[in-house]
Every structure is written in C-alpha cells, then in structure tokens.
C-alpha cells in the first residue's frame, strides 16, 4: 500500500458512503446497477483484488 496523503479523503471512507449510502433508484428507467447486493459483491471483489497484491490470510484456494 502506498502512503496516502493524509489530507486526501481515504478511498475506503468514500466508498463507505458512495457504495453504501446515497439514494438507491431501481426500476426500468435505470440500468440495473444501483443495487445494494451487487455493490456488496463488488466490494468483496475489490478486497480480493487488493489482496491479490498482498497474499491474503483468508484465501483458501491455492
């Protein structure tokens, strides 16, 4: 992990709000993306993509 400038907003703090907060609009008029469950999956994927750079202690696949 690179050292993040202290004054810059940490990405995790931002994602807590942008991916878990905000008004969720579903329905035929939106593309079916703004979906809470999907976002949760994306976050997991993100965590594993970050961990791919550092070996993960909770990865059980070889």
């Amino acid at each position, binding site marked *: *992990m690179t050292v*993040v400038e202290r004054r810059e*907003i*940490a*990405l*995790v*703090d*931002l*994602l*807590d*709000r*942008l*991916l*878990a*907060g*905000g*008004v*969720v*609009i579903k*329905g035929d*008029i*939106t*593309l*079916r*993306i*703004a979906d809470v469950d*999907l*976002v949760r999956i*994306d976050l997991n*994927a*993100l*965590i594993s*993509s*970050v*961990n791919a750079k*550092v070996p*993960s202690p909770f990865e059980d696949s070889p």
Partner: protein
Amino acid sequence: MTGLRYVYAVCRPFGTPLQAQLTGVGGDPPRLMPHHDLVAVVSHVPEGEFGEEPLRANLEDLDWLTAVARAHQGVIDALTTVTTPLPLRLGTVFRDDSGVRTMIEAREESFTRTLDRLEGRVEWGVKVYVESEREPETPAEPAAKPASGRDYLRRRRMATKSQDDLWQRAETFATQLHESLSGSAEDSRLHAPQNPALSGAAGRNVLNAAYLVPRAGSEEFVEKVETTKDGIPGIRVELTGPWAAYSFAGEETAEKEGS
C-alpha cells in the same frame, strides 16, 4: 454526443452556477437539469464505459472505481458549497434525459421530504481503532530479562491479559462514544468496520459510524470528538468530514413515529 445520463444528486433549485472548471465523471462537466421543483445534476457518459455490462466490470476495477468515486465526490462537494444536495448511489445511470425526468416525477414527494430533512445538515464520520499488536508498556523495568521460566510465563500471561483488557476497554469506549455522539446528532448510522486490507490503517476498526449534524452544531460536535482522542492508550479515534449527508439519504431512518 448523446450517451447515457449519470446522475450525481437531486437538489432544490439554487441560484449560484457551478464552478466552471468542475470535471465530472468521465471528464464530462456536470449539467443542471431542472424539472418541476427539483434539479438533477447530470453528466453525459459513454455507453461503452457506463452501459450495464461494462459498468459491472468496471466497478471491480479499483483504478476505474477510484477515478469515478473521486469525480462523483468532487461534484457533490461543489454542490455542498451552494446548496444541500441529496446524493444518489454511485453508478446511477439512465438511458436518456426523459428517463431522468420520469424518475424525478415518480419520486418527487420523497425527494422533497428527504431534502427538507437534510437541509442545513452535514455528515461526520467517526472511527475507533484498537491497536492490537501494541507492546505492553513496562517502563519501570526496561529490558529486564526474565529471571526464570516461571517468570517468563508470568509475563506472557500478563501481556495476554493486558491485550484482553484493551479489547474490553475498547468495546466499552466505542459503545459509550457512540451513545454520547448520538446525543449530539439528529441521526446516526453504523457502517461495517473497515477492512484493513482496503484502508491500510493500523489496528482494528471497531466503530465506523456516521452522524447527521446541523451545520450550526458542527463545531461543538467536532470538539466533543476531539476531547475523546487522548482518552485511552492503544485506542485511536479518527474524525472525517464534513460530508454531504450520503449515509442519511435513504428513506428509512431511525426516526420513531408517533412516540
């Protein structure tokens, strides 16, 4: 260029124009789309990047997500200086302008209600960490070697006990802090503790909370947080904000009706 419509936020109409140099998501400057008594803040984004399939894939690309999240935040921040925006979830994309208008019409009443509730409020984030790998401090006997095996084991037990005590204290501390801060806030939300792999922060995150506070009460709220910072060794408190009220934009709130 047509493309899709990325919507950042819905606001009440405001007089001040947005900063001219503001670049939105995908480099497209945000435009204001007034409809009825509301304004949607919109960028035109390419279908090849923000269409359903590519968007799904892009959301798992950390660099892409970072750029979009920062651009989204930049627009919300700019809006915060001129009005109280109601932020939408990242990645809310419509096929065209008429889709955005339909959405506003369908939710007009709920938007208005939420905008009223958030007017003049900001969000503060408070996190508590336990620094778990902390060495127990024994300043009275620096670098003294254990005299015997029994002495060594006794020290090990004390170190373990001190770690357990720290967890216990951290839990109590976080609970009390949350109660106390909730008392100074209109509403609160608990986010999931942050994964250290993503945050890169030292220690374990035991409280990750957001508080809805009137602008006028913010100074007092921040002071309250600051005074807790030097509380207990091994426990760290972090404050972020002020944010637009992202965590309080949903319809369901902790407000108790009729009580």
